[in-house]
């Protein structure tokens, strides 16, 4: 599986209802005491929005910086964007299917 196959992928719920598109993939850094400086990156969740436009600027996420006008426009485009834990993904499709649309986590809480 490639990251590029996930980015932009259509996301559907258990009743085949459209949920959005994958705008980014969240990875967690994992280290073990025995690994020294080495580390793993594990896929822990997906950022899902109604559209992909402007998402790679990152302005719609968390405490982003940048020109307020661009930030405001991108956040308006991505209002309602959600974080989907990888454990909610049933199949990568296409389309990518998730277990429950109600399990989506509001991205502003992440």
């Amino acid at each position, binding site marked *: 599986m490639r990251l590029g196959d996930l980015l932009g992928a259509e996301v559907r719920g258990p009743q085949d209802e459209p949920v959005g598109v994958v705008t980014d993939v969240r990875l967690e850094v994992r280290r073990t005491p025995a690994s020294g400086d080495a580390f793993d990156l594990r896929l822990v969740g997906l950022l899902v929005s109604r559209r992909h436009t402007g998402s790679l600027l990152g302005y719609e*996420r968390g405490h982003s910086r940048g020109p307020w006008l661009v930030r405001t426009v991108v956040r308006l485009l991505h209002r309602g964007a959600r974080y989907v834990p990888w454990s909610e993904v049933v199949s990568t499709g296409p389309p990518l299917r998730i277990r429950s649309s109600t399990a989506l986590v509001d991205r502003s809480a992440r």
Partner: protein
Amino acid sequence: MTPSSDDIEPTAGSTVDAGLHLLDRQVCDREGRLLCKVDDLELQEAPGEPPAVVAILVGPPALGRRLGGAVGRLVCGVHHRMVSRPDKGPLRIPFTAVRRFRSSVELSVTAEELELGELEAWLRVHLVARIPGADHAAG
């Protein structure tokens, strides 16, 4: 950790957004030489575990597939025409070779160990060698 930060220190438990923090970033070797850009990432699934990043994919086959559409086909088509082994696929940099990533991805190996010079080799044979005087040594 804030995903929007430009400088990412890969501390245990921290998170990064792959598209924002890794894709299209500059890759540098152990000696700081600029090698390539991160065109895509290869993920490997394991039973009972979330997928792990196992390699950085580099080159037109990776970029073209990621871009998709007419532009992606053009990128792949040009690459197919240029290289001697078009079915070889994208170049892979094992993720175990990544030392850290900040505004760029820093490797723990050198360029020579990664065999990233196929494009340069093609240009040397098909372009530079045809320039009048190319067979004369400098100096």
